[in-house]
């Protein structure tokens, strides 16, 4: 365009010049034309005046002719004089005008013509005067003859006048030719101008065409450019729309201008509902300054706050739900406008995965830290990188002290070299896990220098290009101790078994002679083998009582042995527990009476059915009643049985010395008799209460003891009815 500009200026100047020239030429031609018309008019006037001069001449010629009719030569001579005066005056005027206005040869010619006219006029008037004179002399005939001369002279005048007019015509013609010539000359200029105009029009047209072509090209270029831009935009839009990330553009005030499909999806709102709104409405994260906006709303983010940064924020969907999003905002200059592009991603899933990973790591860390085994990880330089809580406990060394060190400080010197080789060999094999073996037990060293037995497993894992060796170890100190304990326990079990068998055999061995003794004494006492004295019978009765006692002790021992061996067997059947209680209280009645004690019974029902072993139940009552009587000096023993619905509760209360609180928990222990010296009779086996407890518990019941020193004790047992 700029290249065409000088051409445009040249063309413009040329146009102005052409037009100016054209105007000037026009002016010139018009001037010539005006002059020509003026001159023509003047010459035409002259011709008219010169014609009038002819008439004036005719008027001069009239009287000489008229005299022949009027016969008044004087009058006619006078009229002729008047006419002649007028003629002369006019001739003088015309001559003066020519003098004044006509120049050069034309004037001279005309003046000569005027003089010729004047001369002819003079001749004619002279002849006319002759006529008049002749006429006055009455020489009419002569006068008449003279008339021909006058007419001849008038003819001369007319000839001169005609010559004058001819001259005027000639001048007029000459002038016209001259003007035509001038105009013709100018006309040539006109042709030039026409050529110039043609050139100008041609140039302008050419220039215009050039411009138009160029414009069209540019237009096409522009169209193509626009089409290209449209394509590019469509492409960009489709790229934006297929992008997984949400892309939002907004202006300086934060008003949203566009958003892609992904952004629509993320915010759950169609673009139409979002465009024009402030992008801040899509965010729930408060501004860091927390400055509440007008009306106490959440402070609005300004585009400048976000420009050039990437942050994790809380987004708000259309339905109001919050979600974590990753937002990166860039500023860009579009024309004179500032624009902002936000690329955002819904990171709910990522957060969840991160959370899971974190939880997993925490879980793993927790597992590692709560593991009972020591876990130690080593890097490739054999430096400790992980030392869990159990390892801390095992080695008496805080993790902070251990991490970064080698394992050497935790190993007795004699193992260090072996260990190093072991680790090297292991790393070379590529095996992932194996247990450490050594000819003897492995030993490790605690921070306090104490060596302890351990077992360990070593594993290797490649993590991030680094080989991590992990040693899982167990302190065997306690296990060794436990093994020792277990050995002792087994030994004691064995001894226990031997003891139990011994008691079994012993009871058998005791019972057989006891049977003989009892039967022998009984038969003697009964008098079967002959009569006896009262004293003898009294003695034998005492012997029988002690045999019974011995028998009970043996039975207790056997029961205890069975309980100990887990061989207490029940023959459960429906049985009336009140009946058993009543019978046992009766059996002990004599013993109570002998001590001056009273046994009272209190049964809630006359009969209560339970599913139990009757002999074992009787044994429980017997043991408890026997105990109560043994430790009571005065007062009473009360036996109660109460139906509790699902259960039955039995209690044996005495008014004995009671049991010290410290001793109370121990009364159900075997052989326990401390500070419970019986009032009368010998020591018991100390097995009565434990046996009672075992029987009650084997029936699914429970037994307990309450006591107050000096006031008495109560033993209560509760049994399920079924």
């Amino acid at each position: 365009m700029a290249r065409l500009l000088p051409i445009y200026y040249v063309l413009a100047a040329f146009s102005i010049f052409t037009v100016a020239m054209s105007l000037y030429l026009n002016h010139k031609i018009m001037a010539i034309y005006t002059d020509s018309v003026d001159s023509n008019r003047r010459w035409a006037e002259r011709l008219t005046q010169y014609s009038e001069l002819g008439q004036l001449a005719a008027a001069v010629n009239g009287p000489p002719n008229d005299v022949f009719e009027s016969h008044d030569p004087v009058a006619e001579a006078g009229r002729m004089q008047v006419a002649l005066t007028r003629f002369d005056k006019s001739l003088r005027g015309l001559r003066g005008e020519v003098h004044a206005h006509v120049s050069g040869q034309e004037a001279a010619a005309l003046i000569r013509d005027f003089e010729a006219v004047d001369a002819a006029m003079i001749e004619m008037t002279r002849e006319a005067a002759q006529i008049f004179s002749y006429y006055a002399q009455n020489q009419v005939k002569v006068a008449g003859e003279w008339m021909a001369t006058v007419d001849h002279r008038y003819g001369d005048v007319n000839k001169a006048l005609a010559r004058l007019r001819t001259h005027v015509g000639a001048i007029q013609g000459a002038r016209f030719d001259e003007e035509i010539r001038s105009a013709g000359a100018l006309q040539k200029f006109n042709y030039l101008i026409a050529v110039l105009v043609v050139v100008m029009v041609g140039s302008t047209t050419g220039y215009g065409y050039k411009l138009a072509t160029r414009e069209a090209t540019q237009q096409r270029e522009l169209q193509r450019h626009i089409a290209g831009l449209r394509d590019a935009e469509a492409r960009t839009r489709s790229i934006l729309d297929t992008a997984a990330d949400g892309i939002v553009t907004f202006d300086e005030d934060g008003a949203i201008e566009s958003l892609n499909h992904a952004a629509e999806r993320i915010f759950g709102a169609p673009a139409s509902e979002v465009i024009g709104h402030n992008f801040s409405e899509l965010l729930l994260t408060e501004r860091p300054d927390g400055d509440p906006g007008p009306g106490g709303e959440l402070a609005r983010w300004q585009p400048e706050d976000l420009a050039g940064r990437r942050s994790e924020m809380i987004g708000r969907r259309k339905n109001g739900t919050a979600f974590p999003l990753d937002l990166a905002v860039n500023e860009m200059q579009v024309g004179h406008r500032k624009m902002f592009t936000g690329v955002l991603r819904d990171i709910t899933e990522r957060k969840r995965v991160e959370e899971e990973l974190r939880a997993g790591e925490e879980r793993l860390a927790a597992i590692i830290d709560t593991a009972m085994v020591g876990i130690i990880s080593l890097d490739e330089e054999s430096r400790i990188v992980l030392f869990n809580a159990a390892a801390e406990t095992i080695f008496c060394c805080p993790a902070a002290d251990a991490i970064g060190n080698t394992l050497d400080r935790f190993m007795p010197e004699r193992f260090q070299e072996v260990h190093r080789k072991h680790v090297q060999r292991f790393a070379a094999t590529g095996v992932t896990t194996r247990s450490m073996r050594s000819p003897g037990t492995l030993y490790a060293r605690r921070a306090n220098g104490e060596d302890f037995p351990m077992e360990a497993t070593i594993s290797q894992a490649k993590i991030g290009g680094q080989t991590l060796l992990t040693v899982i170890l167990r302190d065997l100190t306690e296990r060794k101790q436990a093994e020792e304990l277990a050995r002792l326990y087994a030994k004691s079990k064995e001894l226990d078994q031997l003891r139990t068998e011994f008691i079994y055999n012993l009871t058998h061995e005791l019972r057989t002679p006891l049977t003989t003794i009892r039967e022998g004494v009984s038969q003697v006492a009964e008098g079967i083998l002959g009569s006896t004295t009262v004293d003898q019978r009294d003695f034998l009765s005492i012997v029988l009582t002690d045999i019974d006692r011995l028998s009970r002790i043996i039975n207790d021992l056997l029961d205890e042995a069975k309980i100990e061996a887990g061989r207490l067997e029940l023959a459960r059947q429906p049985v009336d527990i009140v009946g058993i209680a009543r019978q046992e209280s009766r059996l002990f009645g004599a013993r109570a009476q002998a001590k001056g004690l009273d046994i009272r019974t209190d049964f809630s029902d006359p009969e209560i059915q339970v599913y139990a072993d009757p002999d074992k139940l009787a044994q429980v009552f017997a043991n408890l009643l026997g105990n109560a009587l043994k430790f009571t000096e005065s007062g009473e023993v009360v036996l109660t049985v109460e139906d509790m619905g699902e259960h039955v509760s039995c209690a044996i209360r005495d008014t004995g010395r009671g049991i010290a609180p410290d001793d109370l928990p121990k009364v159900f222990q075997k052989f326990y008799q401390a500070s419970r010296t019986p009032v009368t009779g010998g020591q018991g086996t100390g097995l009565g209460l434990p046996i009672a407890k075992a029987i009650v518990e084997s029936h699914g019941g429970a037994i307990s003891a309450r006591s107050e020193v000096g006031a008495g004790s109560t033993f209560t047992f509760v049994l399920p009815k079924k």
Partner: protein
Amino acid sequence: MAKNVLVVDDEPGIVKMVESRLRVAGYGVVTATGGEEALRKCRETKPDVAVLDVMMPGLPGDHVAQAMRDDPTLCDVPVIFLTALVRKQGAPLDEAYLRGPVAGFYYLAKPFKGIELLEMLGKVLGDR
């Protein structure tokens, strides 16, 4: 006619005491101190009831009882076992096995009183 009772125990004292008690009570008594002897005497005398100690050297009481059950001439002789609840070293008899008349056997636990044996004999013979 007096009922005959076979009394078997490896302890002569027991045998003597039981014999004394039974005779006073009017029973006829045959005694033995071992399993083989008991079986022989049983076949000879065809007792009305046999009182057998379980634990005996040689043929134990329960084996004697089994042999009697296998012998058609002796299979309906009631048997009362005397036992201290121990059948053999470390292996006590099932307590239920030792209680009532299971499969025609009766049990009497040592140490027993003479009167208890008499009661049981009366019951066993009365049942028949």
